[in-house]
């Protein structure tokens, strides 16, 4: 038998409050956590009118399919051929794959003397416990040298596209974070705890690159993520104390030059059959495996700075 409660009595119960909260009728943090109301973004009315006009004009021209018969035909033809081409490519690749040697088996052309030497002699010849690290930074180091320059040239192009000059910069400062809350306490507290851990983890990955899974690129990406989190929590004013465009420039320059010169020495001695003075060390120790550890550190620095630079460029076109 259920008892009929009065309205007031019901409103005091937990379930009532829970359902109100659950339905979103009441904000549990109202009055408890300080909230800054955000300014709404307002487009300049004239500019808005202009955009709308331009947009309409374009829509008229491009998508006015009644009048634009050629455009319509072209689009249809393009879509049809693209889809047909895709289906054709799928069929072709599936047939190709059905003729490839079966995955997971041992007697395939891939498992030949190349892989054999990497595994059997890799530890001895490169000193790296992680065979993959030994392979990409010693046996096939020229590829990896090219790879780090791909990253470098990509940063250069991003700088060309997004870096602003001084007059534009002040506008960008004002526009920056217009949609985001500033000085968020929760974010700052979490960041205070997490950022050191993330960065230490990244350093561990870099330093451990020749001993286990990891290496310069992954570790650098982790450190970069830590820096980005720090930037998000505390803003550009704090990060500029230790990381400016100048820092970025010189860190990248020194790491890449070190990489280039060290590898040049190694290539030169290798090709001319000279004795290389770089010691291999005992495999498994932290200071071992010749050039792999310093190269990992160099790559890690470049990648961490690059990730941070990408983020800063995307956000406001400068550091």
């Amino acid at each position: 038998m259920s008892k009929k409660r009065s309205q007031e009595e019901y409103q005091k119960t937990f379930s009532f409050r829970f359902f109100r909260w659950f339905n979103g009728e009441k904000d549990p943090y109202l009055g408890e956590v300080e909230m800054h109301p955000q300014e709404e973004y307002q487009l300049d009315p004239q500019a808005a009118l202009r955009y709308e006009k331009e947009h309409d004009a374009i829509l008229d021209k491009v998508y006015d399919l009644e009048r634009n018969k050629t455009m319509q035909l072209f689009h249809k033809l393009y879509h049809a051929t693209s889809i047909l081409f895709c289906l054709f490519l799928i069929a072709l690749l599936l047939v190709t794959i059905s003729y490839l040697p079966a995955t997971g088996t041992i007697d395939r052309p891939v498992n030949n003397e190349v892989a054999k030497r990497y595994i059997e002699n890799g530890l001895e010849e490169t000193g790296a416990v992680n065979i993959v690290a030994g392979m990409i930074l010693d046996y096939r180091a020229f590829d990896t040298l090219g790879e780090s320059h791909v990253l470098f040239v990509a940063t250069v192009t991003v700088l060309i596209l997004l870096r602003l000059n001084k007059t534009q910069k002040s506008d960008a400062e004002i526009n920056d974070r217009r949609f985001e809350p500033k000085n968020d306490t929760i974010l700052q507290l979490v960041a205070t705890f997490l950022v050191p851990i993330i960065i230490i983890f990244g350093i561990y990955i870099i330093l451990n690159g020749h001993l286990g899974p990891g290496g310069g690129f992954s570790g650098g990406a982790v450190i970069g993520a830590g820096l980005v989190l720090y930037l998000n929590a505390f803003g550009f004013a704090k990060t500029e104390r230790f990381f400016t465009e100048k820092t970025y420039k010189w860190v990248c320059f020194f790491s890449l030059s070190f990489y280039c010169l060290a590898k040049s020495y190694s290539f030169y001695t290798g090709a001319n059959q000279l004795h290389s003075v770089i010691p291999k060390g005992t495999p498994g120790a932290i200071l071992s495996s010749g050039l792999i550890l310093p190269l990992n550190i160099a790559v890690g620095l470049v990648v961490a700075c690059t990730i941070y630079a990408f983020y800063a460029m995307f956000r406001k076109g400068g550091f």
Partner: protein
Amino acid sequence: MNFICNFPFFSILLSLFSGTVCSVLPQRAAKIVNRVVILTIGLLSAILLVYLLSTGEPFIYWMGHFPAPWGNEIRAGVLEAGMALFFCIIMYLSMAGGAHKLPGEVVESKHNLYYILVNLLLSSLLALVYTNDMFTAYVFVEINTISACGLIMIRQVGRTIEAAVRYMIMSLLGSGLLLFGLCIMYDLTGHLLMSNIKESVSLLIATGEYQIPLIVSVALMCIGLCIKSALFPFHAWLPDAYGYSTVSSAAILSSLVSKGYIFLLIKIIYRVIGFDIFNNTRIIDMLFVFGLMGMIFGSLSAIKENDIRRMIAFSSVAQIGYIYMGFGMGTQAGMVASVFHILSHAATKSLLFIAAIGLTDVSGGSRKFIDLTGAAYRSKWAGVAFTVGSLSMVGVPLFSGFISKLLFAQAAVQVEGKMLASLIVLGISTVLNAIYFMKTVIRIYTSTDESSYTSITFKDRKSYALVLLCFIVLNVILGVNSQPIVNMIEQGLAMFD
């Protein structure tokens, strides 16, 4: 090992390293470093070429402490060294010829970045020329693509950025196909080095195993590189990219970047698959047909164009069609003609771009033909140089274009099934070339009464005129003294095996 054998390695590393150094140098120093590096590498390549001609033997250079199937390698023969030398010459002249336009088109603070891009582009071209490893080739293809994109959009007007997006999309489709083909090839052979792949491929062909995947992999790599080098149906990005970027960029892009990919394709044909095996596939017919179509449609688009730089850009589409037609013939003679045309087109096209900027400068910056009337009288050097370039493109004797057309015609006569088609299209394309280039030449030599535009004499821009002179001399050398060069190409192609 002779010390000269280190030179390919020095060239690649020097240009990579100078790219890094330019990022911290002041602007003037970066410019000087850029010039000095290009000249030094040219010098090294010239010495290497002489050394290789005297020994007559290509050599392999280990990149590291490990021999063939384990480590990376680069390889140098006559053709590689010659190409490197030629690329350096064209790049130096293009940079010097466009230098006076750079401050007006690129923001002052971004000049350093421009020189970084040029240095890295040079390094990637050298690596594509010298590499003996497929995966290294892929990595440097990407450097080439990204830095070429940077060169397009460093002059930031709307058109160039849009062109850069279109260029990147097409290029990335091409890279994707190239990489997929490469992976299938790796799965079939278990190697990444060109010489080892070739051994395995001939073994596979002999035993008859994995025929279908092999053909598909070759086709994917070919299509990838065709897309990247703007063969006819994939050329949509090209006119805007060449027509609106800075002058030096346009000259470098049209004459070198696409040629780097084409040279890689030649290497793949000879050093990875084997010339005879490649010719037995249907792929060469496809290249032949697309080449012919490119020759005609590229020229037709150029005729319709009312903008001098876009016209030159469309003419590139036609010229790349010529090169692929040479591949499609499937004979040694066709290949020689194609390689010669790479040289002749690179020399002529950069000359045309540099000369066209001189003409537009004296026409109030306008590129429309109506404003260019009489421009050759206002800037005599540019007028003469443009005329030389046009005559070479049309194929008038004395200039390089004539020799390449002659070689193509000779090669076509030897191929039975494709003779008629190639000769007819060659004829039509020559006539179309003549129509639009002669139209321009007549237009710039038509005198006008109104002299509203200022004229520029030799004294105003000495270095510019000297660059044009060098280009003209280069063109005439290729046109008059062609036999030794053709012999060198033949020797170089023979060294590929």
